[in-house]
């Protein structure tokens, strides 16, 4: 193993390299493109035996990856925001076809207005698609989640999105330990399943009548439920081999006697850890819940972890228009019936800065807010 400075983009690229992806298709978009270029450099330098399909749009990128997956190859693509929305049709289609494609998403805000800055909105827009979604808190986790993602995907037969924020993570250098290739090969052996196979012909995706469609969807959703267990077990296995498990569905930090808990996903978590440590030193009983797997939504795990808590401050870097922050509204639904104060905040949209300062202020504001008047309040306007 070696430890070097990597951006989140590079970490995703190393993840794809270690997973020995066989086919990659991508279409450049900001800020995801450095990951794509890094993989192409691995290929050009002879370090990765991968066929690169230089498609003409994002939609075709996932289509080509899907085709390769159906023909039995391990595939990968990278995108964000507008590209992800453009390929949404293929996103749902890939999940319905139960293909274990892994996609790295360098989360960015959605147009309009046109923004190139980080935000969770693009990932949230795919919440109903049937893809497993993991959110990374730092570049090391990007690399580790990439590898765990392939394992999870190939076990439950569902595609996986690995989310990290544009610029904050995709373009920022952090120390990343790169696992040993041979050990990764043992963790992630070749698992070839050919759906399109001339030796074993079958028709794929024939027109489904009402008699069958709902049953397919039920079975697909069962796989999502099964993923809750698999995400945990893959994390444990990875942790045993490589020393970092990233806790599975959620991580509880300083939760032992916590009365006020901060809940969030993504890059905010690394700042939140610092804030929690600081407030603990001042004697406040503050804790942190990191939601690592947003889909499947870890409702049971959250209920268990938060059952004794009196005040929850949940932060979303996204807005589901007409409803509120995605994590906030879903958390409230999961904790329905529990006597607890939950304050949901929307912040950081379109790249507006969220640092330890903002998190401290949100926690203070939440302490003073007995009951919010809306599903989610906006912070930082």
């Amino acid at each position, binding site marked *: 193993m070696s430890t070097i400075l990597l951006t989140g983009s590079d970490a995703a690229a190393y993840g794809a390299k270690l997973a020995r992806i066989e086919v990659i298709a991508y279409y450049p978009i900001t800020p995801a493109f450095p990951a794509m270029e890094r993989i192409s450099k691995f290929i050009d330098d002879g370090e990765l035996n991968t*066929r690169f399909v230089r498609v003409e749009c994002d939609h*075709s990128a996932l289509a*080509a990856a899907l085709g390769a997956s159906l023909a039995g190859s391990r595939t990968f693509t990278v995108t964000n925001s507008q590209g992800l929305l453009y390929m949404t049709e293929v996103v749902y289609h890939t999940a319905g076809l139960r293909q274990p494609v892994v996609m790295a998403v360098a989360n960015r805000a959605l147009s309009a207005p046109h923004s190139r800055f980080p935000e969770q909105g693009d990932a949230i827009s795919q919440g109903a698609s049937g893809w497993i979604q993991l959110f990374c808190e730092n570049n090391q986790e990007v690399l580790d989640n990439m590898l765990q993602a392939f394992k999870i995907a190939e076990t439950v037969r569902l595609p996986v999105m690995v989310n990290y924020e544009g610029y904050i993570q995709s373009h920022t250098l952090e120390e990343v330990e790169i696992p040993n290739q041979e050990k990764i090969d043992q963790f992630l052996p070749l698992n070839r399943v050919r759906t399109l196979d001339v030796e074993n012909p079958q028709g*794929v995706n*024939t027109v489904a009548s009402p008699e069958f469609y709902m049953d397919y969807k039920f079975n697909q959703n069962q796989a999502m439920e099964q993923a809750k267990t698999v995400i945990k077990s893959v994390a444990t296995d990875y942790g045993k081999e490589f020393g970092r498990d990233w806790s599975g569905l959620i991580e509880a930090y300083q939760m032992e006697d916590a009365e006020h808990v901060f809940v969030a996903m993504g890059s905010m978590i690394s700042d939140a850890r610092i804030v929690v440590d600081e407030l603990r030193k001042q004697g406040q009983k503050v804790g942190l819940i990191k939601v690592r797997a947003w889909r499947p939504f870890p409702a049971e795990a959250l209920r268990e972890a938060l059952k004794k808590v009196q005040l929850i401050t949940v932060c979303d870097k996204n807005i589901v228009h007409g409803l509120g922050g995605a994590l906030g509204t879903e958390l409230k639904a999961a904790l329905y019936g529990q006597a607890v104060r939950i304050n949901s905040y929307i912040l950081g949209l379109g790249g507006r800065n969220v640092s330890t300062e903002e998190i401290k202020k949100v926690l203070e504001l939440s302490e003073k807010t007995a009951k919010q008047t809306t599903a989610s309040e906006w912070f930082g306007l």
Partner: protein
Amino acid sequence: MAQSIADLPKEDLFGQGNAGCGGCGAAVAGRQAMKALGSRTIMTIPASCMATLGGSNLKTTWQIPFYHTLFEIAPAVSSGIRAALEVQGIEDVNVVSWAGDAGTADIGFQSLSGAAERNEHMIHVCYDNEMYMNTGGQTGSQTPMYAITSNMTKGKQGKKKNMLTIMEAHGIDYVASASIAYPLDLIAKFKKAAAKLGFSYIHILAPCHRGWQVPPEKTIEFARLAVESGLFELFEVDEGKRTRTLEPTFIPVEEYLLPQGRFKGLTQEAIQGIQASLNKHYGRGE
């Protein structure tokens, strides 16, 4: 065209039990093409009549791997399939995307152009019934001028977009037009395409009797009349070299056009205009 029908394989890798209308031109095209392509073929078909008649739920008429793709992605999916086959060292497999006129020239045009520009090792087939039949028969870029459709009841004002010229301009290995009325010519062209290392494009005129408003038993007849009038030229462009593969007898265009219900709005003036521009195209004087 060395073969006779008796030399062709008897087995039907597509078509038996298919859910198409009686007299479906697309089904004829599929059956003829599979005589050339054989069982080591992977077929991707975007949303179209061809995808729908291919089967539903747990049943399909295809005896080879067949995948009903989203509307616009068939050539992109085929590119991915070819990449996977190559990296896995699987050889001698035809990868074919088979699309209607929408999936080729309109909604599918972007991914088709991309795959052609990359000169992917695959064949794209357009089975052209000149309208969007699977959604009821609307106008598309491949609908000829004056044709009446379900959403342009006064006839189309614009021209048919020339896909064969566009695909030739991509500089791909092989471009060919074919008609289901000339099966041996069609089959020979598929065999040539299958032998190419790069991208091949085959454009088949496959009439839809419902959309063209002709009796079902005349599906093949109209595919023949289109060629004999000269309106649909049978040719190929092989590594840049253009050859006409059948000399038309030049029956008057109105013998092809007027019996079709979709051209009932055609005036004599329009017919003369069509005949004149056709004559010019073939260099036959005014």
